[in-house]
C-alpha cells in the first residue's frame, strides 16, 4: 500500500479480514510499547514460576507427599503444577486487562489517540486483546516449559494445556477489559484483585481438590472459570482427560470469553465514541 493510496482511498474496513487488519495496527502499538518493559516481564515470568514450583511443589510438597500418602495419586508438585499454570493465566489476565486499559483512557490516553485515526473502538479493543493473548501465551509457555524441566507432568498431552491455559486467561480478559474501560479511577481494581482473584486462586482446586472444600462451597468452585481451567490443564498433564468433561470445561470458558467480548465491544464504543 502506498502512502498516496492510503490518503486518497482510505481502506474502509469491511467485514472479516479488513477488520482485523485495523486491529493489528493497535496490536503493533502494544508491541512498540512492550519493547520498553519486556526484559523485566520475561524475568518475572521465569522467576515467579520457579519460586512457586520450588516453594510449594518441592518444599511444601515434600511434607504433603509424606503425610497425604497416595491421596492425590501423584506427587504434590505434579498435582499443583497444572493448577498453577491455569492460575498464572488468570493472574496475567488481571495484570494486563485492568491497569493498562485504564491507563489507555486516563493516563497515557493512547486509546484516544488511536480513535482519532481510522481505527474504531472495536479495532482498539481487538488489537489490545490480541496483545493480551500474546502475553498469556508467553507467560503460560514459560511456565509450561518450567513444569517440563521439573519433570512435573505425566503425559505428552500436557502440551495441549498451553492453549487451554490461554483460554482460561481469555475467560477473564475481555470481561475485565470491558469493565476497566468504563472506570475513571483504579481504586476498585485492588478490591477486585483481593476479593475476587485471590479467593479464586485459593479455592479453585489449584492447591487441593475442591472435594476437600466444605460441601456448601463446592458449587461456588464449579462456577469459577479458574476451576474449569485447572481441571482441564490437570487432566491433560496427567493424561486422564475424558472428551466429554473436557468439552464442558472448554465450552464454559469459551462462553465467558464470548460474553466478555460482546460486552467489551459495547463499553469500548460508549467510552471512546461518546
Amino acid at each position, binding site marked *: 500500500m502506498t502512502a498516496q493510496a*492510503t490518503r486518497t482511498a*482510505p481502506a474502509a474496513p469491511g467485514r472479516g479480514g479488513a477488520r482485523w487488519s485495523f486491529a493489528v*495496527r493497535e496490536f503493533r502499538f502494544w508491541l*512498540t510499547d512492550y519493547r520498553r518493559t519486556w526484559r523485566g516481564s520475561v524475568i518475572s515470568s521465569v522467576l515467579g514460576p520457579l519460586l512457586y514450583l520450588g516453594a510449594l511443589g518441592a518444599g511444601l510438597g515434600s511434607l504433603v507427599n509424606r503425610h497425604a500418602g497416595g491421596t492425590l495419586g501423584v506427587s504434590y508438585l505434579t498435582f499443583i503444577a497444572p493448577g498453577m499454570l491455569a492460575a498464572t493465566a488468570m493472574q496475567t489476565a488481571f495484570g494486563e486487562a485492568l491497569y493498562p486499559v485504564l491507563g489507555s483512557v486516563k493516563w497515557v490516553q*493512547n486509546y484516544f489517540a488511536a480513535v*482519532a485515526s*481510522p*481505527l474504531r473502538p472495536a479495532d482498539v479493543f481487538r488489537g489490545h486483546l490480541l496483545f493480551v493473548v500474546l502475553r498469556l501465551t508467553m507467560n503460560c509457555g514459560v511456565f509450561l516449559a518450567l513444569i517440563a524441566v521439573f519433570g512435573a507432568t505425566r503425559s505428552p498431552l500436557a502440551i495441549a494445556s498451553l492453549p487451554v491455559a490461554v483460554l482460561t486467561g481469555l475467560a477473564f480478559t475481555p470481561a475485565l477489559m470491558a469493565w476497566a474501560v468504563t472506570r475513571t479511577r483504579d481504586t476498585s481494581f485492588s478490591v477486585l484483585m483481593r476479593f475476587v482473584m485471590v479467593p479464586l486462586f485459593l479455592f479453585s482446586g489449584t492447591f487441593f481438590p475442591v472435594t476437600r472444600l466444605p460441601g456448601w462451597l463446592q458449587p461456588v468452585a464449579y462456577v469459577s472459570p479458574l476451576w474449569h481451567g485447572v481441571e482441564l490443564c490437570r487432566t491433560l498433564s496427567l493424561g486422564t482427560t475424558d472428551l466429554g468433561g473436557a468439552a464442558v470445561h472448554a465450552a464454559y470458558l469459551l462462553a465467558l470469553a464470548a460474553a466478555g467480548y460482546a460486552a467489551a465491544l459495547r463499553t469500548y464504543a460508549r467510552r471512546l465514541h*461518546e
Partner: protein
Amino acid sequence: MPDADQADGAAEILVRARGLTKRFGDFPAVVGIDFSISRGEAFGFLGPNGAGKSSTMRMIGCVSPPTSGELTILGLNPVTDGPAIRARLGVVPQENTLDLELTVRENLLVYGRYFGLPRAVIRERSAMLLDFVQLSDRAGDQVEPLSGGMKRRLVIARSLINEPDILLLDEPTTGLDPQARHIVWDRLFRLKQRGVTLILTTHYMDEAEQLCDRLVVMDGGRIAAEGSPRALIQRYSTPEVLELRFDPGDHEQAAEKLRGLPAERLEVLADRVLIYTTNGDEALAAVGGLGLEPLTSLARRSTLEDVFLRLTGRHLDD
C-alpha cells in the same frame, strides 16, 4: 447567513452542519448549530469553556456521533463513514495524548501506523515534520521531559503524518506560555499559507484574530454570531474602546456620571468602565470635561473580546 462567504460558489465546502445537536443525557452541549467550512479556510469556534466548542470539534472528528441534525464532512457521513473520514483528518486534541515514555520519533511511528502507513513513508515524513516544528534535534529523546510548547508542536507534527485534508485543533495553545504560543501560531500560520484547511476552537480572542479567516462565536451551545474577525468587530463593536479604572469607592458614582457621555455604549464591569466610541482620546477628553479623574485610562482598538461581551454580557475567560 453561514453561506454568505461562499457566494462565489467556487469554494469547495468540506464541512457542513445543519441543525447539529449534541446532548449528553439531559445536558444540551450543542443546540442546533449551522455552519459551513470551505477548503483552504481557517475557521474558528470562539467561546468560553463549556460553550460547546469541543463537543462540536469531536463530532467533526467523527469520535462523537451527533444526537440530531445533519453533518457532512468531505462529502461523507461521519456516522457511517467515520474511518474513511478520519483517514483524511489531522487531529490536535485538547489533551496531547502523547506516549510520554516513547521517544519523539516513536510517537510519530506509532501514530503513522494507525493510518496504515508503511514504515519508510512514516520515517520520511517524520523527518520533514520534525524539521517543520523545530524538533529535529529531539527526535531520539523521550517525550516526558519536553516542555509544554515542544509537546504541543510534536502533537501538531503527529497530526500531519497522514497529510490530512483538514486539520482540527482543539484549544491549540491553552496552557502554553506566551513565547511558546507564538511559535505554535507561527507554525499554524505557515500551514494556512500552504492552503491547509484549519478548524480550531479557542477561548483566546487574540488567537482567533491571528489565525481565523472566519469564525463563529459560541455561547451556551449556540452560535451567537458569525463572520470574519474584522466584520464581527465592525458589526458588534465600535472602532475604539476607552477603558477607565476608578477608585473602588468612586466606581459606582463615576459610572453613573459617565452615562451622560455621548458614547455609543457603556459597559460597567466590576473593576472597570468600558466606553465604546469612535475615538478614544476624544472620549477621554470628554470624561475630563465631566470633572472625573480615573486612576488609569487606556484607549484601544476594539477586539473580539468586546464582541463577545456585547453578545453575551460576559467575558471569554469567565
